[in-house]
């Protein structure tokens, strides 16, 4: 058994590797880290990894193991080897994300107003009207500056051809940014010197940027009261809701803490009711107001939508943004970019077969064993068939579902995700990763330099979800110039 982790025996095994090129040579952005790790004393990296695990446990960055009365908790596994992105590549990703979010916002604003993209038959009208997450209640609403989606967490992957593709847009309540910030904190504690040598761009200003974004939604109030609305402590993302409220210095509220009175929204405090101006809600549309959407919701606030419609409270994200998360509508995003911005998409979509189209459907049914089939309105790995890992019976079942309701299905090729070296027992092995950067849209568009790199810890696995053996890594974006190493906030 080797006593020290090093890259001497590391194999890329013909996958696209984020650290080494096809000939096994370190990429320039990863070279400093590779050399430093190779030079570490025996067991040093393991010791640091253990210290990080302990820190995460102590900080309570854990998720509950459901059904366990003893209250056991697990940490979201964290791997000490970061993913590294060069400044040139990041500039490309950043430009692509800004372009995409701009187009998506124009699309959402359009479909809840003139619907010109439907009238011009760029996106079929029937598609919109069948989308489960389309909210006719939102017609004619005018969020400030026409921005509907203020916080986005877009899922990106790198395919074996080396290009970065957009896998999903996540325009509703994307989670995970708290892990980005905490991962960075523990990494900085573990490798203080390497950070300055490798010129990693900081992420610590996310909370203040988020605060400024939320503040900008209530332009007429100079010091608006902002709150984060959570479904409560038993929600799997509760840690993040609480973390963001804490980092921004605002109240974390539950539905029952809010009340609508005389058309305004108030929170119940020890000194009576206090007016609330902006709500960063981490509750889905369906649940935010039982008077407007789901009647059985106990998480929401009765009357909230009326207050919102009358401009008496701002919501981030605006209700109705989920329509663009529909996986069939996703297939049309490149067309939206051309339609609204008259530009070519910088970040391509993954090739998507829309089962409603006869040609596509025929192709999907003929090749179902090689494709990934997804239901239009599911997320989190539900309603999905991974062709190469499925049985004949499952394929027959999905083929039947597609024939019955073609509108509800799309298919994509089975992608090969790129890999990053990851600690496996006493050595490094390549593990597949994806990347979720976070984009804020207030006065301007801003992309957090980095994002959540999720890693499939099981050998050969492409599933990065934490519920299925996924973990996370710190994401290092290398600075292109001195200014990118500074943290600036627009106010104060």
């Amino acid at each position, binding site marked *: 058994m080797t006593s020290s982790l090093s890259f001497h025996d590391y194999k890329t095994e013909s996958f696209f590797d984020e650290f080494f090129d096809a000939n096994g040579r370190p990429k320039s952005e990863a070279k400093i880290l590779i050399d430093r790790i190779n030079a570490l004393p025996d067991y040093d990296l393991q010791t640091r990894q253990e210290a990080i695990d302990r820190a995460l*446990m*102590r*900080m*309570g960055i854990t998720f509950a193991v459901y059904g366990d*009365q*003893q*209250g056991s908790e697990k940490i979201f596994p964290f791997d000490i080897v970061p993913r590294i992105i060069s400044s040139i590549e990041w500039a490309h990703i950043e430009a692509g994300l800004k372009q995409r979010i701009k187009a998506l916002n124009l699309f959402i604003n359009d479909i809840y107003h003139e619907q010109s993209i439907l009238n011009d038959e760029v996106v079929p009208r029937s598609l919109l009207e069948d989308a489960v997450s389309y909210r006719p209640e939102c017609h004619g609403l005018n969020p400030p500056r026409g921005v509907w989606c203020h916080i986005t967490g877009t899922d990106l992957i790198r395919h074996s051809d080396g290009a970065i593709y957009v896998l999903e847009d996540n325009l509703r309540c994307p989670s995970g940014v708290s892990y980005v910030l905490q991962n960075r904190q523990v990494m900085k504690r573990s490798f203080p010197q390497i950070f300055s040598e490798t010129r990693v761009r900081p992420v610590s200003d996310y909370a203040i940027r988020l605060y400024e974004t939320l503040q900008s939604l209530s332009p007429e109030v100079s010091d608006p009261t902002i709150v*984060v609305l959570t479904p*409560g*402590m038993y929600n799997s993302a*509760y*840690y993040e809701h*609480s*973390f963001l*409220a*804490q980092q921004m210095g*605002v*109240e*974390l*509220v*539950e539905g*029952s*803490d809010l009340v609508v009175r005389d058309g305004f929204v108030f*929170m*119940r*405090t*020890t*000194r*009576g*009711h206090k007016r609330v101006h902006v709500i960063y809600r981490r509750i889905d549309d369906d649940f935010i107001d039982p008077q407007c959407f789901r009647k059985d919701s106990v998480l929401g606030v009765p009357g909230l939508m009326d207050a919102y419609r009358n401009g008496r409270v701002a919501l981030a994200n605006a209700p109705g943004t989920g329509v663009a998360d529909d996986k069939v509508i996703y297939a049309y995003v490149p067309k939206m970019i051309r339609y609204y911005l008259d530009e070519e998409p910088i970040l391509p979509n993954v090739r998507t077969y829309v089962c409603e189209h006869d040609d596509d459907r025929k192709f999907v049914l003929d090749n179902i064993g090689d494709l990934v089939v997804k239901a239009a309105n599911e997320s989190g790995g539900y309603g999905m068939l991974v062709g190469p890992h499925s049985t004949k019976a499952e394929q027959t079942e999905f083929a039947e579902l597609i024939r019955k309701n073609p509108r509800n299905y799309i298919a994509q090729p089975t992608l090969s995700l790129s890999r990053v070296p990851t600690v496996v027992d006493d050595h490094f092995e390549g593990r597949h990763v994806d990347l979720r950067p976070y984009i804020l849209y207030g006065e301007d568009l801003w992309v957090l330099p980095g994002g959540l790199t999720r890693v499939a810890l099981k050998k050969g696995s492409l599933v990065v979800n934490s519920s299925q053996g996924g973990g996370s890594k710190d994401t290092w974006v290398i600075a292109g110039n001195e200014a990118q190493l500074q943290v600036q906030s627009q106010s104060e």
Partner: protein
Amino acid sequence: MLSRVADSILWMARYVERAENLARFIDVTLNLQIDMPGSAHTQWEPLVRATGDDEKFKERYGEFNEQNVITFLTFDRKNSNSILTILRAARENARSIRETISSETWEQLNAFYHFVRDAADTDAVQESPGDFFLEVKHYSHLLNGVTDSTMSHNEGWHFSNMGRLLERADKTSRILDVKYFTLLPRVEDVGSPVDDLQWSAVLRSVSGFEMYRKRYHGITVERIVEFLVLDREFPRAIQYCLAEADNSLHAISGTAAGTFVNPAEQHLGRLRAELAFCDVKSIINQGLHEFVDSLQTQLNLIGEGITDTFIDPKTVV
């Protein structure tokens, strides 16, 4: 601040204080047992009885011996008043208000809970119970220190402080009540020579031995009662706890000291006035047990007053 948050922070602090005092309760009994060999049965039973859970205990454990009582009061997950379940409740409250308390406070409470939970699965406590309960007290002290020095002394802190001190006043009265009864079953015994060792153990259980010595030197039951009930400087004495809780209550409401605008201030102010003009002789004459009973009734009224005023007002303000 949010009413729900105020409630959670108050209960977080109360639960932690409750867990610490339970450790003190057990610790003093362990010490007394060492000083009074052969008294085990008379020592452990009142401890369980004081928690009001003696029926439940008898069903599940039977005999009131050291090991059973310690397990029941420390680690029993089915006992809603064991140190482990109390800390779990404290932590659940803290978890729901993580954005309000400091990260340091949360981490310390988290470490406290993990320490007790991990100990539940080992024999460490049976082997060396004194060390374990000492460690529990340390964790609680650390948590209080961390909270006091990392959290702004704002409204949230005052709710926490008030919760902690009201709980402490209640628990000091209970330790005194139980030990007074066990060590001095007959009123006539007050004033008769008592075993210094035993009463020193009681004082030690509230970390009061040295401070008592500085104040009074010689040990008498009357002085001990005076010290634990009426002292204005010792931080576990009831009078001190109520004065500090009252300061926090007025800091929260903004009402001038010595006045009241809500039932919480009214009840607490009245209780403080009663203690301020009371002497130890009248407490002993009234009967210590009766005195403690009445004190606890009034503490309950104060708790209800806090809820009605800040947490769940009957009328919308």
